[in-house]
């Protein structure tokens, strides 16, 4: 329980790193002077505002530096740029990333912040503007914070709750299948009770995993349910186990009930594995970990997050196992088979 207390407190309280939410205007033409209004998150622009530096980056070292940066308050600033009329390569439109460096907040990036349409008249002398500056001497933010990811923002905390739910569910169903196998071998009704207790709790974890996932999806994919493979597969997985519970309730004889449960449970568990792990990997999905989206690892799970994520996984799994034991004992006391 201590672990979960720590997970909840650390998961909710530790702030996010400063980041940039919005840059406006979102597009402009090349060869013009543009003043960008930048909105930050958890930022403190006013402290040491003289040393704010901003860039627009095309690729790697191809950057232009801001001519002037003016902080209005802690969350808003303006940066003026001259967009060169000529670009090193030809394209319909040029997406530029906005990079900001602050002595206290560190560096923040907003990818594809502004789109540039090519100029009618290109002055090749402007080409060298792209190579005059480099992004260097950047600062990093000190202290314990979670990374700021665009779009994800605060929902990155869902990593501590949504992901462990599914881990625990799979483990609970696995343990349940294991007890079904034991019942298959020994025929002791206690093993049946045990496996059903694990299925009940696993179902609760599965529903919670689905709900936390849907809340997260509303904020990032803009819909609770978008018929994504992962969503469909997890819903079907829950349907299978719900069907098992329905089947149990319609059998009169206890031994018969236990035998059918054990059989269907093992059958279902073996089929759920391709369902949840192989098929979503084979199709495009919006879910992290599929279709080129990053999942556990890379920039979405840095070392600070690991400090909370791993205890969260262990904590929720242990919670699931513990509740299952309680369910098993109450069922046994009540004499429910």
């Amino acid at each position: 329980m201590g672990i979960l207390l720590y997970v909840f407190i650390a998961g909710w309280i530790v702030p996010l790193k400063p980041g940039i939410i919005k840059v406006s205007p979102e597009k402009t033409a090349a060869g013009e002077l543009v003043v960008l209004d930048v909105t930050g998150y958890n930022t403190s622009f006013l402290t040491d505002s003289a040393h704010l530096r901003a860039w627009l980056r095309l690729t790697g070292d191809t950057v232009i530096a801001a001519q002037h940066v003016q902080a209005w308050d802690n969350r808003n600033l303006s940066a003026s740029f001259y967009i060169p009329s000529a670009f090193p390569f030809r394209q319909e439109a040029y997406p530029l990333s906005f990079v900001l460096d602050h002595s206290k907040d560190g560096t923040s990036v907003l990818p594809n912040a502004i789109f540039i349409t090519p100029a009618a008249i290109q002055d090749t002398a402007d080409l060298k503007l792209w190579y005059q500056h480099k992004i260097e001497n950047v600062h990093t933010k000190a202290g314990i914070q979670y990374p700021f990811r665009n779009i994800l923002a605060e929902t990155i905390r869902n990593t501590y709750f949504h992901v462990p739910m599914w881990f625990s569910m799979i483990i609970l169903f696995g343990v349940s299948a294991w007890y079904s196998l034991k019942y298959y071998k020994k025929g002791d009704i206690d093993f049946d009770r045990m496996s059903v207790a694990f299925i009940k709790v696993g179902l609760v974890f599965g529903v919670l995993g689905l709900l936390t996932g849907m809340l997260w999806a509303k904020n990032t994919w803009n819909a609770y349910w978008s018929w994504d493979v992962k969503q469909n597969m997890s819903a079907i997985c829950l349907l299978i186990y719900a069907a098992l519970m329905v089947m149990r309730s319609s059998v009169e004889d206890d031994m018969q009930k236990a035998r059918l449960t054990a059989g269907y449970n093992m059958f279902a568990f073996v089929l759920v594995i391709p369902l949840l792990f192989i098929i979503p990997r084979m199709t495009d999905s919006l879910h992290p970990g599929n279709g080129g989206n990053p999942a556990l690892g890379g920039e979405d799970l840095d070392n600070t997050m690991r400090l909370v994520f791993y205890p969260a996984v262990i904590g929720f799994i242990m919670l699931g196992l513990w509740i299952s034991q309680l369910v098993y004992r109450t069922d046994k006391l009540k004499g429910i088979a």
Partner: protein
Amino acid sequence: MNRIWTLVATEARIELRERYALSGIVLYVLSSSFIVFSIWRQLPAKEWGLTFWVIFLFCALMAVLKTFGKESEGRYFYYYTLYHPLELFLAKVFYNLFLLLFIFLVLWFVLYVMAGNHIIRLGWFLTTGFMACMGLSFLLTLITSIAIKTQQNASLTAVMALPLMIPLLINILRLTAYASGTTPDENPWNEMMLLSGIISLVVGMSLWLFPYLWRS
């Protein structure tokens, strides 16, 4: 093996003696195709494949549902003394396999006549169809054998079998899309491997579990 064929032949003879059984299936296929077709009006290649398998699934469910239903308790007891459960199971599976293949061909014919042909890779479609019948007959036979022991077996068969069919169905739909040329699938062998993997899982599990579930 011979004993299994005897059982299959007995099943078939009982079924053929009652004329309404097979013709019932044909009528079911026809009427459901008509309903679907009058909703869709026309079936382009992509919808053709989807419609085909949706109708097939429900016809298969309906046909397999009565696998264990029509015998009296006494006959089971008689079978139980005569045959090993696995022989009985395989006989039922083979019989259902023939039923499903029959539905497959009838449905294909009906949709061919009503909505035209959209299959450009015939071999792939037939292989997929055969694999689908195989997998479904094992899965459905096992599930009906569970559901028959409960109070409300018809709805429970559907409830328990439908979600379990999904992995099979997804692969079948993808292979059908490849066979009708609606997806630029470069490597259909991957899908085929996965499909046969899932089917062998189903076959292995059901052969292992049936003798255990049958005891009662």
